């Protein structure tokens, strides 16, 4: 099953249009800097990055489905595989490792060893102190994309290389499956 997702991800990566990585990294960096200047509160910046990621994620869901023709995942394990081997692979060419499954299979961790967004970045000590998660946009993307697939999840960073930890880790937790909407009945 995971072999199949890996091939799907790589096939889709080959066909997608590519852009200059540095341009993207610098654009993201200046975006975060501007947010910091505008909000002056790192908590608010985190929230804003999450919201932006959400808007990206709801569109990415349809995009991934269109590119790969994947169907609904059978369980949350498969979902994690698809996020890592297809989602991250197609858009960033990285494959985060999945680990630390909770016993009820509702939570897992994505370990990002080589997050491209971190490449030219160094956080000032104040940012680290006040809790800025630089790549928080990923959490929003995961949340948005999974919500379009009828899953309500919470995603947040636990560790981040930029803050001095040894790797970056996102914890994804399935809150509940969303039911499909039913058309309003005639009154």
């Amino acid at each position, binding site marked *: 099953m995971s072999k199949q997702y890996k091939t799907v991800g790589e096939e889709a990566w080959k066909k997608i249009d590519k852009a200059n990585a540095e341009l993207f990294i610098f654009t993201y960096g200046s975006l975060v800097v501007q947010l910091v200047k505008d909000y002056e509160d790192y908590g608010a910046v985190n929230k804003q990055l999450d919201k932006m990621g959400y808007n990206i994620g709801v569109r990415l869901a349809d995009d991934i489905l269109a590119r790969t023709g994947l169907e609904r995942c059978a369980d949350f394990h498969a979902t994690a595989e698809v996020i890592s081997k297809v989602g991250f692979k197609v858009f960033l060419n990285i494959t985060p490792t999945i680990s630390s499954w909770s016993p009820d299979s509702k939570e897992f961790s994505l370990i990002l060893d080589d997050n491209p967004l971190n490449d030219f970045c160094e956080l000032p000590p104040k940012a680290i102190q006040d809790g800025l998660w630089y790549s928080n946009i990923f959490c929003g993307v995961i949340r948005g994309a999974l919500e*379009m*697939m009828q899953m309500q999840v919470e995603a947040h960073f636990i560790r981040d290389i930029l803050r001095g930890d040894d790797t970056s880790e996102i914890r994804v937790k399935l809150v509940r499956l969303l039911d499909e*909407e039913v058309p309003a009945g005639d009154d």
Partner: protein
Amino acid sequence: MVVVYNIYIFDRHCECIFYSEWNRINSPLAAAAAATEGIHGNKELRGNQVLTTDNLDSPRSSFDQQAPLVWPTTATSTAHRIAPESPRNVAMEEEAKLVYGVVFSTRNIINKLSSKDSPQGGNPGGFMSLATNTYRLHYYETPTGVKFVLNTDIATTSMQPVLEMIYRNIYVEYVVKNPLFRIDPLKTTPIENDFFRAVLNNYIREISSPLSAV
């Protein structure tokens, strides 16, 4: 020899976000368009002359016109087929709701009978088309809850690849990737994108053949 009659696109909130037709007799859109044309004085109606059955019964083929009738439109869109200040087309709304009800219930029954139903919806039962003695309705649903309904002549057996193409290369490209198209977890946004309409119209024109002159 494929004749496409019309297409409905429903979003995950059970609302019709797009409707377009190409060869349809007695269309509620045509009636509304003709009525508003009369009100705005573009067409002359003498006294109590009602729109003759002539106008409405002949199949309106829009292949020779640039823009087919589409719905819903609002004042902000640039579609010119329906007058900008047109009131809500209730007949069209009701029809869209009925169509949605039909495909929704049919899909649910099929899911239940193949014991693959789930509260998350989707199309595990594989509902593809249903046919009457005048037309065939084709259905395609994406895992994100977007539903495409296409009505064609009976002889056309499968439009699944066509619907998939429309989803992947037209809907995703022009609607989902458009940052001005709001995707809201609570509200429905109708598609008001001229590029989408044009590309879809061209695609349907390419794959279908016009109604024969019989």
